[in-house]
Structures are given as structure tokens and as C-alpha cells.
């Protein structure tokens, strides 16, 4: 690129615009989860005893561990942005790697959790589940739908962060041009915020 073109390209970077775009997208994601959240609150009100019975079958321990895992991954991605802004590329890459690994840990825990329910015939449409009270069927339906949708977002977030890691390696995202890593981080934090609300919904009703 010649010098004039380079200056023009730099001028056309709109930092605030890029972030506003990301936030608008995050709001659409928020409303995607808000729908089932409302549905949950209504059914929980109608079938509170069934919900408490079904909720007590989930492992509070695994749920709490996963909450801490996701909170820690949010910390590492937030730190990685500061590290890049301070010009520490190595630390940035390390912290992004830690974030992706923690995302994977979360999914492995989720896998075992789902598996433990599925072997007992507790999955949407299973006969063992359908013979239970109405509220419990609704609870497990919402559980699989909402945590499943959330897990898809964790996978999407890990993919985004993997691409960002690649960008940092190739110096496409740098100390002076970091809006991509910030936006990737925002997505990861949103996934964390959604989990913060899912956790009490399914694990803390006793």
C-alpha cells in the first residue's frame, strides 16, 4: 500500500462505530435468551413444586464449578485485551489460549452433565420423562433447550477467539488497532452474563 492509501485507510477506521455495531448485535442475542427466560418464569410460577423437584436432580456442584470456570475465562479474556494494549503480545496469546481452554472445560463438564441425565432417560421426548408430572417435563425441556443454546454460543465464542488469536499472531490485531479483540471479548462476556442468569434458574431452586 502506498502512503496516501495507507493514511486514507487509517482515517476510515471507525472505532466507536465498530463497537456500537457489536453492542447492537449483543442486544439481539440478549433477546434471543430473554424469550425462553420469560417462558421459564411463567411455568415456574404455574408448576413451582414440579420445578423444585426437577431442579434438585441437577448437580449444584457441577453447576457451581462451571460458573467459576466461565467467570475465570471472562477474567482471562479481559486481561488479554489490557495485555495487548500494553504491547505484550506473548501474554495476550497466552491469555486467549487460557480462555479457549476454559471454554472447552465448560463444555466437557456440560457433556458429562447432559450424559448423566440422558442415560436415565431424561431428555425431551423420552418415555421415562413423559411419564413424569407436567412441570418436570417442562423443566427438563427448558433445561436442555436453554443450556444447549448457551453451549452453542460457547462454541461460537471459542471459534471467534480462535480467529482473534490468529489475527494477533499475524499482527492483524495490534497494540494500536485492537477493536476486533475487544469485540470478540464482548461476545465472550455476553456468553458469561447469560450463564450468570441460567445458573440460578436451573441449579439454585431447592
Amino acid at each position, binding site marked *: 500500500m502506498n502512503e496516501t492509501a495507507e493514511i486514507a485507510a487509517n482515517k476510515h477506521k471507525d*472505532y*466507536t462505530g465498530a*463497537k*456500537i455495531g457489536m*453492542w*447492537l448485535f449483543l*442486544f439481539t442475542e*440478549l*433477546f434471543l435468551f*430473554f424469550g425462553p427466560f*420469560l417462558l421459564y418464569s*411463567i411455568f415456574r410460577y404455574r408448576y413451582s413444586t414440579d420445578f423444585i423437584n426437577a431442579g434438585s436432580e441437577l448437580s*449444584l456442584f457441577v453447576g*457451581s464449578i462451571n*460458573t*467459576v470456570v466461565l*467467570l*475465570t475465562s*471472562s*477474567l482471562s*479474556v*479481559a*486481561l488479554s*485485551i*489490557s*495485555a495487548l*494494549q*500494553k504491547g505484550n503480545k506473548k501474554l495476550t496469546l497466552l491469555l486467549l489460549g487460557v480462555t479457549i481452554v476454559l471454554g472447552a472445560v465448560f463444555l466437557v463438564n456440560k457433556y458429562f452433565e447432559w450424559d448423566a441425565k440422558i442415560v436415565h432417560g431424561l431428555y425431551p421426548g423420552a418415555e421415562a420423562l413423559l411419564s413424569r408430572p407436567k412441570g418436570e417435563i417442562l423443566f427438563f425441556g427448558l433445561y436442555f433447550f436453554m443450556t444447549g443454546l448457551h453451549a452453542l454460543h460457547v462454541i461460537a465464542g471459542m471459534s471467534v477467539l480462535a480467529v482473534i488469536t490468529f489475527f494477533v499472531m499475524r499482527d492483524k490485531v495490534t497494540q494500536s488497532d485492537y477493536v476486533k479483540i*475487544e469485540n470478540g*471479548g*464482548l461476545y465472550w*462476556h455476553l456468553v*458469561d*452474563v447469560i450463564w*450468570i*442468569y441460567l*445458573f*440460578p434458574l436451573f441449579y*439454585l*431452586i*431447592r
Partner: protein
Amino acid sequence: MDYTEKAHRPIKYSIFVYVWLALVALTWLTVAVSGMHMGRLSLISPFIIASAKAFLVVAFFMHIKYEAGIFRLFIGVALATMFVVVWLVYSDIAFRS
């Protein structure tokens, strides 16, 4: 209109670590409180604690504390929209026979 960007100074590592400690502490608190049977309070307390955690994540990890005011306005509009939807849905449910 002035398009010059404020220089974004990197946020100190220690601030993030303190926020993380607060988040873990609040997680512990919400688990501990869920064991006590406090009637209506135990229905609302996990939601309040979750909102405190979400506030910390949004304010610090998502940099809203350090961002231009327009972002706070956006979040306010989104929350207000949610409030209206909740209000409409719940009043619909309440008056259905």
C-alpha cells in the same frame, strides 16, 4: 462533529482481578443463600445476586465504565424494552382465565 477518539488507556490488571474475586464471592453467596429456605426472599435473592454479577461484568469486563455515554444509553433502552415486554406478558398471563 468531532471524531477524534479519546486515547484508550489499558485498564490495570489488578482491577480485573478484584472484579473476578467479587464475582466468585457472589457465586459462593448465592449458593449459600439457596440452601436457606426463606420463602419469597429465596425466590428473588438469586436474581438480585445474578444482577449484581452481571453489572460487574458489564461495567468492568465489558468496559462500559470507561466507554462513551452513548453505550449506557443503549443498554438503558434495551433494559427498558425488556421491562415493557415483561410487563405486557405478565399482565396478559394474570388476566387470562
